[in-house]
């Protein structure tokens, strides 16, 4: 009976949480649309150049639907967006969805590599710092975490290039892959495409190009995960059940690895999910430093030349990913931590 209640509660919570995404997404689309079409300066003279005539600008606005009432513009944009049509770029005339699609795998590849690095090293450093509390290891872990949140990621990228490319000549300073080795486009993720092709040289090239930007991008998240893991581990290690486990004579490695770590990971999971979302923001800067051909660099370029449909499309896409990842993180958290379900019940 109780079991069924909690399943029903869980389902109710999931549905409630998923439904909450809809108004947030509509709100984001309105905010971005208003920013781009109401508050931004008229793009016509920028796109057509200063010498454009009044008539040619009128014609251009009409062709891009900018002469219609703003509400109508929004609803036709929303209707299009729901079908995957995000409009066309003012400059290339290519559908925005296609432009983004061509660059998106590069950003995802970078963000995934960064979050993997951040997760592994963040948890490792955090656990070591907690287990060896108040020793040199703890101090070192805290120091690395502090540097990670204080160094601007673009400067970190520059320092990496100076050292690994300039001094050691070990890693390439920019780009995604050696152009000559580029594998055939299947997934758009070069490392996977290279594997599909069975091309070892391409895989290696993609990997060495990925290392520096992924480290630079992941450093901030690693610092956050380290701090979270440390404090969460310290809390778990102080619990009664750990004392009980130790008293029963279970080996220290098992106490830490199995009992303490598992419980500490509940809040850490959420933080990792949230960090993945914010990595997409950081990618903007990292991609700029490493000439990484993803959406980050594309966004900045598009903003600089007022290519609003592109900017709108990217912001919406990133918001969708951000919200989805947060949603998944919340659901995982709720699944792992039964107290959340009680809270939602009490509220609802």
């Amino acid at each position, binding site marked *: 009976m109780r079991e069924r209640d909690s399943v029903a509660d869980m389902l109710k919570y999931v549905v409630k949480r998923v439904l909450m995404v809809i108004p947030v997404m509509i709100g984001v689309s309105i905010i971005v649309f208003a920013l781009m079409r109401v508050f931004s300066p008229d793009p016509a003279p920028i796109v057509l150049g200063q010498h454009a005539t009044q008539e040619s600008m009128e014609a251009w606005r009409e062709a891009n639907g900018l002469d219609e009432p703003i509400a109508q513009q929004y609803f036709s944009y929303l209707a299009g967006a729901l079908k995957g049509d995000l409009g066309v770029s003012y400059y290339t005339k290519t559908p925005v969805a296609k432009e983004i699609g061509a660059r998106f795998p590069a950003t995802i590849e970078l963000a995934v590599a960064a979050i993997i690095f951040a997760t592994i090293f963040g948890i490792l450093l955090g656990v070591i710092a907690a287990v060896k509390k108040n020793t040199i290891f703890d101090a070192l872990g805290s120091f690395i975490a502090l540097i990670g949140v204080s160094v601007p990621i673009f400067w970190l990228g*520059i320092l990496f290039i100076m050292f690994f490319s300039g001094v050691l000549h070990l890693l390439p300073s920019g780009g995604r892959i050696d152009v000559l080795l580029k594998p055939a486009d299947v997934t758009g993720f070069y490392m996977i495409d290279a594997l599909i092709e069975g091309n070892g040289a391409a895989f290696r090239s993609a990997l060495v190009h990925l290392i520096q930007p992924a480290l630079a991008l992941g450093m901030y998240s690693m610092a956050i995960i380290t701090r979270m893991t440390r404090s969460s581990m310290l809390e778990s290690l102080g619990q009664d059940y750990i004392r009980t486990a130790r008293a029963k004579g279970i080996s220290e490695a098992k106490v830490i690895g199995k009992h303490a770590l598992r419980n500490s990971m509940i809040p850490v999971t*959420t933080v990792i999910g949230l960090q993945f979302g914010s990595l997409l923001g950081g990618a903007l800067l990292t991609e700029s430093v490493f000439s990484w051909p993803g959406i980050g660099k594309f966004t900045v370029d598009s903003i600089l030349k007022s290519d609003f449909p592109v900017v709108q499309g990217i912001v919406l896409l990133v918001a969708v990913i951000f919200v989805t990842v947060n949603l998944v993180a919340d659901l995982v958290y709720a699944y792992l931590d039964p107290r959340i379900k009680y809270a939602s019940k009490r509220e609802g």
Partner: protein
Amino acid sequence: MAPWDRDVPGDFAEIGSETAAADEALAMGTALPDGEIPVFEDDETLHEKPEKQWLEMWRSLRANKAALVSLVFIVFLVLIAVFGPLLTPYNPVETHMANALKPPSAEHIFGTDQLGMDIFSRVIAGTRVSLTVGLLAVSIALSIGIVLGAVAGYFGGWIDTVIMRVMDMMLSVPSILLAITLMAALGKGIDKAVIAIGLVSIPEYARIVRGSILSIKENDYIAAAHVVGLTDARIIFRHVLPNALSVIIVRATLGISSAVLDTAALGFLGLGVQPPQAEWGDMLGRARGFIFQAPHTLIFPGLAITLTVLAFNLLGDGLRDALDPRARIK
């Protein structure tokens, strides 16, 4: 407490208090303890406790070496920002092409940049820009965030729902992306950067203030204030907010560090100050092409950003520990 009330994602300040519940507990520790009988005719008595709290905080902060050194460094930065023009050996915006990209020497201790401008003078001039932008952006975010958070937390109901959902919308776009989107609408320039950075950090202040308000408003003395017939505005600003002040100060200190970082990021992307004005991130962005040829052009501005951010982070951490009764006992 529902999970969406959890605080700002990936935020430096929230480590160790990852749930809003923990924030409330923190705020609770700084509020008037139960059993205290406040006298409402005399407002001054309400301020007595927070003052004692400042003293306690200062004592705790003094024991924290890192935070203290940071505080001294910040004072030093402020002095540089104020007296900057008197300290620069050269005009920070004067180009001297014949003298471009010179490594550090006795005449130019940080070397010269691609236009022959003295990097030391530019780093000094940039201090004023970064600190001003940081302070102004945080002030914008604070004043709007406090009002929104206080109104949401105090009144609850649909007002709370509307305000917090809008905050959720803003939080669903990474802040730097939202900031540059705003810059696209507002146009380039450091004044626009201040507004953009300020606006995107409103939600974090609104959330933290709301969390504090929620816990404080349950106190008996707030109920008593209602009974006495004080207006809502008076209760919020005179009785509720002063008790949330310490939490707000911690967040604002950490907020300055992220505002300095964001300013540098916008400058790096070429959206900040207009040339030839000196700004640390802008200096990095423009010298980027000389990374192998003249690395010194990239070392010093980056170091300036990092040290400034580090100092505000350490001070913010120190203040938080000083305010947290649990940490104080240890």
